């Protein structure tokens, strides 16, 4: 009887030990494969709780909104695509891409020139592959500081394409004349809005499946506007967007930069497209408005080449010509005695 009781106690003790080990120790191989903090860990995205806007982006938004209102099409709606980082429960806005001159807009709607914005996104992502689209800011002609019913119809489907299936939406409006409109600093009337010199942006979030937008707190942090170097060449970007998109899709190693020089007429801004080739050779196109010039650098000297628009055709013809000349050179070397 005693031996049975002792055996039963031993079995119960062993079962208890197994349960304790199961709860306290990692599973097979788990300890070795767990990613260390900060590196290689996939942080799951949660519902957005706040938006951080780079100070330079907020300044750009106010500046471009003011310029737009003073322009020929100031009565129309306008807007911007927001790029930045999407992290856990926050969005960090680091660039605002304008709707463009070729936008389709009126006093009650705006459809962006998204091809130019897509090319600009590719350019910025060449430097930082973590950049993603976070949402959209657009303006309203009156004092409606909330996205409209029509906005919801499009946005509620569109947010399904975004990281975390959630987007950030800003509404730009003009405030009534107030005494402090002249103040040379931004103000934050509410958690989800910023105003400056009579212009105001209110911010909302919308996730897939939501029945309505919800106000989202916005904080301003010191930071860059990554799109700013490209704002002086935005019209040039729009002129050549289709060709540049083709180049991006077909060539790797493409580099596009905004550059400028000054002459008697003033400051000229260009888009520089370069394609590095083997042995230090390079093809380069300079784009300025609808104009374009093509160059070939053989590593020692730069030559201007005649080219044909659009820009992708000009570059592919230049590549074909270089291939033809290389074949001729090889044939002549092989035929030498």
């Amino acid at each position, binding site marked *: 009887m005693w031996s049975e009781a002792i055996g039963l106690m031993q079995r119960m003790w062993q079962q208890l030990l197994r349960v304790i080990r199961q709860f306290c120790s990692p599973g097979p191989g788990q300890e070795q494969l767990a*990613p260390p903090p900060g590196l290689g860990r996939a942080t799951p995205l949660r519902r957005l709780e706040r938006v951080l806007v780079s100070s330079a982006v907020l300044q750009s938004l106010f500046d471009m909104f003011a310029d737009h209102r003073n322009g020929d099409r100031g009565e129309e709606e306008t807007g911007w*695509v927001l790029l930045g980082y999407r992290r856990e429960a926050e969005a960090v806005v680091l660039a605002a891409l304008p709707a463009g001159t070729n936008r389709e807009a009126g006093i009650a709607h705006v459809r962006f020139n998204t091809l130019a*914005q897509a090319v600009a996104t590719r350019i910025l992502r060449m430097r930082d592959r973590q950049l*993603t689209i976070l949402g959209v800011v657009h303006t309203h002609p009156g004092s409606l500081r909330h996205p409209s019913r029509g906005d919801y119809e499009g946005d509620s489907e569109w947010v399904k394409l975004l990281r975390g299936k959630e987007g950030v939406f800003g509404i730009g409006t003009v405030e009534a004349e107030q005494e402090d409109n002249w103040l040379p600093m931004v103000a934050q009337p509410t958690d989800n809005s910023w105003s400056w010199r009579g212009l105001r942006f209110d911010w909302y979030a919308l996730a897939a499946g939501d029945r309505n937008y919800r106000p989202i707190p916005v904080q301003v942090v010191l930071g860059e506007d990554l799109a700013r170097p490209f704002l002086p060449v935005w019209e040039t970007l729009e002129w050549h967007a289709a060709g540049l998109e083709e180049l991006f899709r077909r060539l790797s190693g493409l580099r596009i930069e905004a550059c400028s020089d000054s002459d008697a007429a003033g400051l000229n801004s260009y888009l520089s497209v370069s394609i590095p080739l083997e042995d230090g050779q390079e093809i380069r196109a300079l784009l300025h408005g609808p104009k374009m010039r093509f160059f070939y650098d053989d590593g020692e000297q730069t030559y201007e080449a005649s080219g044909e628009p659009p820009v992708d055709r000009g570059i592919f013809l230049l590549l074909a010509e270089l291939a033809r000349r290389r074949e001729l050179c090889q044939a002549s070397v092989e035929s030498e005695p």
Partner: protein
Amino acid sequence: MDFRPLNDTERRTLLAALRANAQEDRAILMDRRNTRFVGTAEEVPEEDVINAVKSVPCHY
């Protein structure tokens, strides 16, 4: 050529990065100066981003 054994932390980091690369298509980062492994980046697929930009709906 010098073969240096990885320490425990480096080995764990590399395994995590290889697994993230295989399962989630995340890039393995390399130090340009000495080709040393430095971690993984949480990249966003290019075409997903571009498709979303091109699909921005009309706003009212």
